[in-house]
């Protein structure tokens, strides 16, 4: 065969590496499509035989099952679609809170890992090595079992009448808007406006003088000060505080009033934050260590303080290295929240499973679940990638 081919002047198509490449690619694509088609028809036939043809019609039927906690009003007379949305919001609730807290804790731990203080450095090391080497599910169950160790609701641990800890979670006093809140709103807007104006003006000033400075804390103080002044002024004007603390009150079985955080939510949030913070701290540490040592030395030589070096020289450069892996950690946290099903927190996956169990519509429910997590993750990536591009521009 080889000798024949050599005698011809034109290379036959089956010996031409270009055509072979495209044949291979087309062939592979066909093989994948045929495989998928076989799987699809097989599934549809199986479902047809079992009288379970997929349909989204169930979404408008009454759900009938209760959901323990919901940010939006929900009761079992509402339909499956609304129940699903409750699940989505519950997942968002734990994911967003978790991401914020895990970032703060992770950042702190990452800096601790690089501290000159022996105790701090090694405490952070022990934390990271223990937490990231134990499966998250175990940790979640551990935190949830720990909530059982707390006293019964009737014998709650009372922290100054503001926070009550018990085996169903914690109930805490929570601010509640009163009638005079509307009188206070102009003050809030004024404070915000003042704060932003001050911040912008100061930043312009810094740039003009070509000197670093601190603007944000002062701006925040300005906002808080104006708000507080308005708070007192409203009280003097109307004789009514615009916002009061809603204190929890113990009824026969449970507390009413205040903000209730269930044991499941608390355990899930604590578990996710502690677990993800360990990974984030490693991301932060590696990011900081990746900045050239010369940068720090140069900054010190210019007379910048330790804090200024970190804030103005090291951190902006470290951030570029930190953001991409940090995005992965955020995505992990959001997806890991589906382990909530083990500790009775009604997240997206939990509600989805219940809907699947009640309606038997496994395929549509799983598609909806996958779609929801996908959208959630893609949106997170989108925001993080946008931020990543923005800070990358600084590079010279």
């Amino acid at each position, binding site marked *: 065969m080889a000798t024949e081919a050599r005698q011809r002047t034109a290379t036959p198509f089956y010996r031409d590496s270009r055509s072979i490449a495209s044949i291979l690619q087309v062939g592979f694509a066909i*093989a994948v499509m045929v495989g998928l088609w*076989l799987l699809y028809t097989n599934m549809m036939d*199986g479902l047809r035989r079992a009288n379970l043809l997929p349909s989204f019609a169930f979404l408008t039927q009454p759900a009938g099952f209760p959901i323990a906690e919901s940010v939006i009003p929900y009761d079992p007379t509402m339909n499956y679609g609304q129940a699903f949305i409750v699940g989505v919001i519950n997942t968002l609730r734990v994911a967003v809170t978790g991401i914020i807290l895990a970032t703060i804790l992770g950042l702190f731990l990452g800096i601790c890992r690089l501290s000159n203080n022996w105790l701090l450095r090694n405490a952070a090391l022990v934390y990271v090595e223990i937490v990231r080497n134990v499966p998250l599910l175990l940790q979640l169950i551990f935190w949830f079992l720990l909530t059982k160790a707390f006293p019964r609701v009737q014998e709650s641990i009372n922290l100054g009448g503001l926070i009550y800890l018990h085996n169903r979670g914690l109930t805490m006093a929570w601010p509640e808007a009163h009638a005079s809140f509307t009188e206070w709103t102009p003050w809030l807007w004024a404070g915000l406006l003042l704060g932003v104006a001050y911040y912008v003006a100061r930043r312009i000033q810094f740039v003009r003088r070509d000197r670093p400075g601190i603007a944000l804390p002062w701006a925040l103080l300005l906002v808080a000060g104006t708000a507080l002044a308005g708070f007192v002024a409203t009280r003097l004007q109307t004789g009514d505080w615009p916002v009061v603390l809603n204190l929890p009150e113990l009824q026969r079985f449970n507390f009413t009033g205040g903000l209730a955080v269930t044991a499941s939510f608390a355990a899930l949030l604590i578990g996710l934050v502690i677990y993800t913070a360990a990974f984030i701290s490693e991301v932060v540490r590696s990011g900081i260590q990746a900045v050239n040592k010369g940068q720090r030395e140069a900054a010190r030589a210019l007379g910048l303080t330790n804090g200024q070096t970190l804030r103005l020289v090291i951190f902006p450069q470290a951030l570029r290295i930190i953001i991409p892996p940090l995005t992965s950690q955020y995505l992990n946290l959001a997806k890991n929240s589906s382990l909530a099903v083990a500790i009775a927190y009604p997240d997206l996956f939990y509600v989805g499973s*219940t809907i699947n169990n009640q309606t038997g519509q*496994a395929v549509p429910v799983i598609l909806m679940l996958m779609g929801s997590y996908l959208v959630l993750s893609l949106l997170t990536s989108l925001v993080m990638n946008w931020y990543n591009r923005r800070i990358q521009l600084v590079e010279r």
Partner: protein
Amino acid sequence: MKRQMLVVLTGALAMLLTACGGQTPQAATQPPAQPTTAAPATTQGPTAAPATAATAAPSAAAGGGQAQPATGGRIQTIISRGKLICGVNASALPGFASVDSTGTYKGFDIDYCKAIAAALFNDPSKVEYRPLSAADRFTALQTGEIDVLNRNSTFTLQRDGALGLEWMPTTFYDGQGMMVRKSSNIKTLEDLNGATICVQTGTTTELNLADNFRARGLKFTPLVFQTNDEVVAAYEADQCNGFTTDKSGLVSSQTLLKNPAEHQILDVTMSKEPLGPAVAQGDQQWGDAVRWIVFATFQAEEFGITSANLGEFTSSTVPDIQRFLGLGDNKLGAGVGLSNDFVQRVIKAVGNYEEIYNRNLGPSTPFNLPRGLNTLYTKGGLLYSPPFR
């Protein structure tokens, strides 16, 4: 060298492609062939076990919807596998399904798994128990992972219809109850207004709870877990004020609590809970077989036939009993794909309904559940077997 590799690669790919393409027509030609292999199976009973019929069913799926009347499919699969796969409760539910200290399954639901295995193999031990949570059980049945579900599951329209399942005769007529601490001084559901209530997800009780409280204008916070074990643990830790499930389940779970005497089951029944075995829809013959195995336990009690006195009845001249036990020329079993003496096999293995009940839930057990509705129609109960003729 590189060229040679490419040629080999294309060859391999071509083989792969023809294999893929070849499978489709092959699958498409199979459905017409299937009824012919399956048809004799119905008359020959379980002894004829063409393994091909069982394996042909999944691949026939690609061909289209003709595979609908899959007669004999499931029974053949079980026979050729050599054991019955029975879905049971993953949580300990003493009296219904639990694992004892020697690792053997015991309970009312377990005995019905054994009864089916006895009818098929004349050996009640040929069962593989598949522990399932409430949320997983129907998927396991729908996908054919288990042959039959014996997991205190309630017969409802939604499950029978939309979930693609088929319910067998009710083996236990139950109703939903509520357990509370005696010290809590709760007497009625109304007393539970504002309480936290533990319930298992994927159950009818989860839905009934919401309905009952809404109908009475009561508020409650659900605390919902995947397994009964978790529910019991949370109730024990006083994370909830009430624990609701079928009354039989409450009686059973009460024995798992540290101090059972501190708890009581309220004198309210929130729903009807007819519990029984279930199979997947689409295999009539398998459904018939399980249905008549269950009926056989009722009928045996009606005739007074027990595992102890079965021998005396095998020489009976009463036509009803001869037919029931498949004596002489009576060939009733074959009609449902079972052997003609399947009733004898069942009684020998697990006994009649009364024996099954008393062994697991009766006066000699810690539960001492009164039979209530679960007695023969002749004694004012609901157990009624259609005639074996």
